[in-house]
């Protein structure tokens, strides 16, 4: 199936949301430290995984002051993509084309305050059913590699809930409203209030439609072109009408309800009504 409007919306929302949080909230921390070897049976035998204690490194070079790595240090020497290193930004690790499991690997990178995921799961499943590993961003957290692939908190889960078209103008122009939501699982109320405040102020924001081909990551969760800037990518797709945040509502899980949860997370919600004016099937 060829790419549809909903696919384009999902890509555009994810990239915009990530950039908006990182730029408006400076929601990241620059870290320097060791990367630790661990076995990953999912990997090709030619790669060895050296992981940091944090998932989801910042990829976006349009975020001021964020340290975006283009390599890691192996036994004190810089080793980049040219040497066959893959940087897995999603899992916070480097994949080295080596057989050695005892290298001294270090790196500098910016870690997002919140992992951002796209999900089809219901709020009930996200908040009540699922068990999470807390990948704390606070000082003094674990100094071992975080295991890959599993979703960890603090995190924000984005989802599309519904899409409605209404006639807008003669000639077949439709007003498409997509209802999207975000469930925030935070470590403390400062983090939660920060995210809710940033996105409550996203009312009237517009962001460009970015097709799936504009997504910056490859199959290793490394950057396709070696670098990525949201501003530049969004700028190359400015010929179509942008998405527009028509309405946004933020709310928090009441403390009384929160205390009945098994985990001690702070939970918030953002409900977006995002519009685009378009012709059908475009």
């Amino acid at each position: 199936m060829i790419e549809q409007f909903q696919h384009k919306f999902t890509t555009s929302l994810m990239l915009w949301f990530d950039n908006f949080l990182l730029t408006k909230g400076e929601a990241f921390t620059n870290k320097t430290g060791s990367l630790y070897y661990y076995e990953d049976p999912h990997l090709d035998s030619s790669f060895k995984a050296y992981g940091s204690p944090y998932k989801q490194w910042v990829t976006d070079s349009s975020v001021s002051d964020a340290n975006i790595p283009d390599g890691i240090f192996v036994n004190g020497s810089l080793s980049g993509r040219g040497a066959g290193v893959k940087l897995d930004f999603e899992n916070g690790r480097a994949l080295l084309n080596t057989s050695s499991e005892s290298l001294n690997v270090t790196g500098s990178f910016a870690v997002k305050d919140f992992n951002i995921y796209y999900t089809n799961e219901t709020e009930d499943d996200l908040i009540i059913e699922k068990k999470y590993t807390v990948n704390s961003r606070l000082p003094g957290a674990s100094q071992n590699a975080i295991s890959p692939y599993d979703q960890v908190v603090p995190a924000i889960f984005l989802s599309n809930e519904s899409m409605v078209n209404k006639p807008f103008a003669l000639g077949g122009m439709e007003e498409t409203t997509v209802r999207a939501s975000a469930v925030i699982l935070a470590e403390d109320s400062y983090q939660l209030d920060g995210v809710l405040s940033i996105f409550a102020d996203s009312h009237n924001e517009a962001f460009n439609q970015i097709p799936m081909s504009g997504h910056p990551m490859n199959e290793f969760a490394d950057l396709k072109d070696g670098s990525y800037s949201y501003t530049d990518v969004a700028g190359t797709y400015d010929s179509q009408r942008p998405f527009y945040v028509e309405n946004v509502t933020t709310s928090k899980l009441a403390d009384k309800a929160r205390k009945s949860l098994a985990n001690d997370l702070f939970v918030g919600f953002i409900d977006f009504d995002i519009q685009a004016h378009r012709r059908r099937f475009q």
Partner: protein
Amino acid sequence: MAKLDRDVILAIQKQAPRVGRRQIKKEFKKEFDKLKNQMIDEFLNHPVSVELAAGPSAGNISGTLGGVSNLFAFIGFSQGDDPLIPILKVLQSTSFRQVDIIKKNRKVGINYLVDFPEPNAVFSVTPLPWATGRSWAKGIESGLSGLGYLLRKSSASSRSGVAVQSKKRVRGGKFQNVPYISSLLKKYKTKFDKLK
């Protein structure tokens, strides 16, 4: 037939609004109240309202949960809550006021403006018990998760008593949204606009 002088016509036109205002207002109010009561009746007889008004022991007559449990428990209200009262207050606040007097082609009338609530006025007074920034009334139209039900279930004591004993599990995905406040207000706004 004798023709009235222009001065007399002008004098009558000038006095008519004052003389007829009370009568016109009385007639307008009668129609207005009839329509307002009709709107409130329709709201109270909506299956969602009927189910919520019946409290935690009601059946799922609105069909929004596929017949399992009921909305009162699903949303997470506590026993003794009356979730419809804030909406009724908003609907009751519908009023009218005189804005100007029309004089056209020897006819005289009064223009009234109906102060009619927007859906957001209802949504702002209908917070979910477990997330006060979210509106349950809006959720009825756009979708609700089963979080209220599950949170109550996971807490040591049930707040709405009866519903927690439901043996079947209620999931967010099972909720079927239905037209509620927005469509009701849209319908009656058109009717109030046509009021003469």
